[in-house]
């Protein structure tokens, strides 16, 4: 970037945020620079982002809902170091309800949810984590969606109640966005994504887990412009999901060169060759992993030596499987075969049929070959 943080001057004299949490100005500005880069904005936007965050009269209220999931997205959220969790909670967001990290429990917790919804009606951001099961469990008195019950309400009821009055709904992780592993075939609980369950359009930040930098960038975009970022046809923000992993992959040069890892641990793997033959799904996955990376820019699967499994794509457990093969298998009743096995069988059948007919023709050559007829005469 070239310029250090101290070069920027701000119109807001009171540095409210800094004083509040004791966060260094430099850290705050590097966070703003990260957000600016993630959103695809130039360096000139860094002071604007800083201003937007500082000027926000009230931090946006966030209600974080857990549905059927593994809390992996919350884990990713509380492990974010840039921005750090205290920065997130104290400065950028006002997380009024989060089942995993809040101190309150029981009626106090539910009271906090009701209060946050009432006080910020139409203004809060609902963050949904996890899929919503719509199936009916077996047994007496079971009703639709009973597979997930929180505080006496089914997941669907809770989602509808909270999402109805939200200014924006953000689905973090693949479960909330598209159903995730719960929605994998045969999907015993009838799990679906939040948008499909409630019928309310949501902004999706899929991934397994989501990348916190992207989720926070969505909020910063909301603070900066007052609107959610532009999305693709699946509802994922374009700044993070507009580019294909394959096109920004650090191993792409080896793909183009025709240098592929044949087996985990071979010489190619040591030379960081392309993981295409190991079933990498980077060529059909849209995410900004190669540029933003996970865990504070430490690493991401392909950098670590494992193929992409396409965790930001809808129904990736079904569609991208098997994870270590290029192509899915063909499932016919009673048979499961690879496309190549079926192809070889077809080609073999065509060649065998031709050969058999060729032999038949040769044996009957007297019927059509006039030279043979002449000899007989």
């Amino acid at each position, binding site marked *: 970037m070239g310029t250090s943080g101290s070069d920027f001057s701000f119109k807001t004299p009171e540095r409210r945020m800094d004083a509040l949490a004791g966060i260094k100005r430099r850290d705050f500005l590097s966070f703003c620079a990260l957000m600016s880069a993630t959103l695809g904005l130039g360096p000139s936007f860094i002071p604007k982002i800083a201003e937007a965050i500082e000027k926000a009269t009230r931090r946006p209220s966030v209600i974080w809902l857990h549905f059927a999931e593994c809390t992996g997205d919350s884990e990713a959220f509380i492990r974010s170091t840039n921005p750090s969790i205290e920065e997130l909670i104290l400065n950028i967001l006002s997380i009024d309800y989060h089942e995993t990290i809040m101190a309150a429990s029981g009626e106090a917790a539910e009271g906090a949810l009701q209060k946050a919804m009432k006080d910020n009606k139409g203004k809060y951001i609902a963050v949904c984590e996890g899929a919503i099961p719509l199936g009916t469990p077996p047994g007496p008195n079971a009703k639709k969606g009973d597979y997930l019950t929180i505080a006496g309400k089914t997941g669907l009821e809770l989602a509808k109640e909270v999402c109805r009055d939200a200014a924006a709904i953000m689905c973090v992780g693949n479960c909330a966005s598209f159903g995730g592993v719960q929605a994998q075939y045969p999907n015993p609980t009838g799990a679906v994504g939040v948008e499909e369950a409630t019928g309310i359009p949501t902004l999706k930040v899929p991934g397994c887990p989501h990348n916190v930098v992207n989720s926070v960038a969505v909020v910063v975009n909301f603070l900066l412009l007052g609107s959610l970022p532009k999305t693709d046809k699946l509802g994922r923000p374009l700044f993070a999901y*507009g580019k*294909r992993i*394959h*096109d920004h992959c650090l191993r792409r*040069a*080896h*793909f*183009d*060169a*025709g*240098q*592929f890892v044949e087996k985990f641990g071979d010489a190619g793997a040591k030379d960081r060759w392309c993981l*295409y*033959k190991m079933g990498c*799904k980077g*060529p*059909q996955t849209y995410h900004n992993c190669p540029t933003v990376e996970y865990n504070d820019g430490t690493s991401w699967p392909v950098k670590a030596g494992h193929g992409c499994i396409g965790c930001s*794509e*809808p*129904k990736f457990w*079904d*569609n*991208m499987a098997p994870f270590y093969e*290029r*192509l*899915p298998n*063909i499932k016919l009743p009673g048979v499961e075969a690879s*496309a*190549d096995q*079926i*192809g*070889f069988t*077809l*080609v073999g*059948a*065509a*060649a065998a*049929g*031709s050969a058999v*007919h*060729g032999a*038949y*023709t040769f044996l*009957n050559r007297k*019927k*059509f070959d*006039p*030279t043979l007829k*002449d000899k007989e005469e």
Partner: protein
Amino acid sequence: MAQIHISPQKKALVYTRNFTNRLIHWTTFFSVITLLITGYYIGEPTAVYGQGEAYNTFVMADIRYYHFIAAMVLDVSLMVWFYLAFFSMSHRYWRQMLPTPKNIKEAMEVKKSYFTFKKPKFYSHFDPFDGLLFLALILFMVMQMVTGFQLYVEGLPQNYWWAQIIHLATDWVEWVFGSHQNVRLVHHLMEWIMVSGIIVHIYLQVTKTIIWQDGHIGQMVGGYKYKDIK
């Protein structure tokens, strides 16, 4: 000493295939062969490896480039083929390729002749049995074209006008097959079906040339084939 055989059957040369017709056939032939070889490598990169440092080696990139060029050539030749099927000045062949009851009946007769070795009726361009085989191959090529474009567009910038046209024209493919991986699978499997179709096609033409002695393959080179005179 080899004997020179002079057929007792009187024959006449008939001009059946004009230049455009032959050009389309051989354009299709060379592009499909290129597509088969390069496509196999792209699906299963084996046997050829990039040597040396990756900055200066482009095995996969080059093979994909030839695959795309051959695909574009095939697409254009397919379009010309479709245009001529309906609007050709010499021979509008679309009617002979439709699986109508009449065509199927005649195709069955041609099929029977491969086993009885009684020469069927003279067809100037292609017989109905071949007509139906060509229809299948053409439909597979169209399928390869749309699934191929759906895979190709992933590598283009999404705001590029050409990418948007492809999206507009072929996005239904992903919906039909359920997922992007399935599109890839269909593109791969379809190629094997086409290879078996091509084996059958070549076998039939060679057999016909031998058993009916009408210069059947030669018509794709010179344009003429023999017709028996009674």
